[in-house]
């Protein structure tokens, strides 16, 4: 069983929900990202989605675009992001880390080197937003051989036939996109989310988390009820945007992840 599945199982055994924060690696710099990762774990995160910055993030809203621009202004590369995970692993052997980003940096690095370095660094899963299952076979096979999970998105526009295909290819967890739009937009239709998740649960063997548009404890609590957990991206990246470009005080780091602590607390209360 992968580290991701293990962590989810443990949390669920105690009746809890999975909290998955997303941050852009290298925003505002790699040293701060490492401190943020540890702070996120301390605040009650189960899994960390580490965004690999890309120059053309066409599925992301403005907040995450700006985070990527800040990281790229520092010259952050995919190999540095993988190295960040290796550093994180030296003191945290338990918290799963998922690399989330776009395909091109992985293509240019080369699938083999990517899978080998990621696996060696202690990465647990990969989510590439512009690599649908039909285009994934060469990389999917290599990730599976290395024991890394490959996570896919299901959107409100995804047909049932296609959702079944995606669920059958997906390992670790399935990421349900709560809205038609980009990351950080506003959720408008909770009923259809409930309906779609209900359907997904009838055939998906993996846990389901919901992301895009979760802003606070209330939205986290109302969506967590429908699934196994929630992803918090833009709302966290917005807080991180307020940090100094380097050498943030410990209190500033803690303050920027306090949203995650508040969500953890609320979800634990509401079960």
């Amino acid at each position, binding site marked *: 069983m992968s580290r991701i599945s293990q962590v989810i199982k443990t949390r669920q055994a105690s009746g809890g929900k999975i909290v998955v924060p997303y941050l852009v690696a290298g925003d505002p710099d790699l040293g701060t990202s490492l401190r943020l990762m540890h702070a996120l774990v301390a605040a009650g995160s189960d899994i960390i989605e580490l965004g690999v910055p890309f120059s053309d993030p066409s599925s992301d809203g403005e907040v995450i675009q700006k985070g990527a621009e800040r990281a790229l202004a520092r010259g952050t590369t995919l190999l540095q992001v993988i190295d960040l995970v290796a550093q994180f692993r030296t003191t945290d052997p338990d918290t799963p880390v998922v690399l989330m980003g776009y395909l091109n940096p992985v293509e*240019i690095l080369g699938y083999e080197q990517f899978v080998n370095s990621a696996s060696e660094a202690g990465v647990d899963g990969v989510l590439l937003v512009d690599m649908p299952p*039909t285009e994934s*076979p060469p990389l999917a096979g290599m990730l599976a051989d290395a024991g890394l999970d490959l996570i896919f998105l299901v959107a409100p526009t995804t047909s049932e036939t*296609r959702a079944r*295909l995606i669920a059958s290819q997906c390992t670790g967890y399935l990421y349900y996109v709560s809205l*038609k739009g980009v990351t950080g937009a506003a959720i408008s239709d909770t009923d259809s989310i409930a309906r779609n998740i209900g359907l997904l649960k009838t055939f998906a063997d993996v846990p389901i988390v919901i992301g895009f548009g979760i802003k606070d404890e209330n939205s986290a609590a109302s969506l967590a009820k429908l699934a196994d957990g929630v992803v918090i991206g833009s709302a966290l990246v917005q807080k991180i945007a307020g940090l100094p470009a380097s050498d943030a005080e410990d209190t500033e780091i803690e303050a920027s992840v306090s949203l995650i602590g508040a969500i953890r607390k609320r979800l634990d209360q509401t079960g």
Partner: protein
Amino acid sequence: MLSKDVESRHISNADPLEGPDRLGHFGPYGGMFVGETLVAAVEELAEVYERLAADPDFWEEFHRDLKYYVGRPSPLYFAERLTSAAGGADIYLKREDLNHTGAHKVNNTIGQALLARHMGKTRLIAETGAGQHGVASATVAARMGLECHVYMGSEDIKRQAPNVYRMKLLGARVVPVTSGTKTLKDAMNEALRDWATNVDTTYYMIGTAAGPHPYPKLVRDFQSVIGREARQQCLEQIGRLPDALVACVGGGSNAIGLFHPFLHDSEVAMYGVEAGGLGLQTGKHAAPLSDGRPGVLHGNRTYLMTDAGGQIRDTHSVSAGLDYPGVGPEHAWLKDIKRVQYVAATDEETLHAFHDLTRMEGIIPALESSHAIAYAMKLAAELGPGKQIVVNLSGRGDKDIQTVAAIDGIEL
């Protein structure tokens, strides 16, 4: 289901010139690399297009619009004085600059507007660099009474003020894009974000033969009217097929439109001319086929201008319409199988060609098309007398006179 898809990908390329396969692949290039929210939309478009492309009534309507609204066929013109100046092969110009709206772009927007109408979409979005595709999109939107939003980099809005005003006159909303490099690629990112948000009502009119399947195929099919006419005109006017075709390549829609109907004519050589900017060796250019590598951007795998870490590099070209870091996937494939040779013309060579054609033939070419003219003059000298070259004059240059004047130090 998946394993069958993969299988079909590997057995489909019996004839390497007959791409794409069912999933949009030209060899290893092309494909459908979009976020999950858009997959249903591109799949729906692929289905609708497959159905309509098999329907003669659809093509009849398309060709009726091209004849009575665009003004086709465009002439094939023998450029006698340019030929003398080049000192070799005869140079013929395929006059896409004479189309309504002044460029080849309208062939595609006419076709895609028909698709949008068949799909019941009420809102058009488009990205534009030089503004030619934006104008062509705003034009068909006006004609069909559809809402139209054109995404344009804020840098390009500054460079192409006349086209911005043209779009506004036509009733389109021009949305400035301030992210990234503030040029065409960022406009495309923003259009993709809009599409994901408004996917139920919106048709995304991509302006070149790139992007996710089925765009590279359907844009090529609509633009192939250029090559079909040129082929027929060569047979009628010259009495045989030409020795070479030359076209500029940004995303590559005018080039693939000219080339495609000639691909099986092995005696016809083909040259795609990329934007060499300040020179390939300077890195300041927009020539991914000449100096790039395969990667994935904007829905397809193709040659890209990308750095060692996989970030998309800034491009440079004197012509906003070629200032794009990718290229259509069919060109990537035609390069690899060596059916088309891809070369580059620098800004300087391009400006010379712009002035030459203007002064010798009384035709002001778009800066994009001037790249093709520049290379064709070189090629004419190499091939020598008795040979024939067809150059795609993809657009007229009125939009560029401010740029050229500024470079020549003239204040208008």
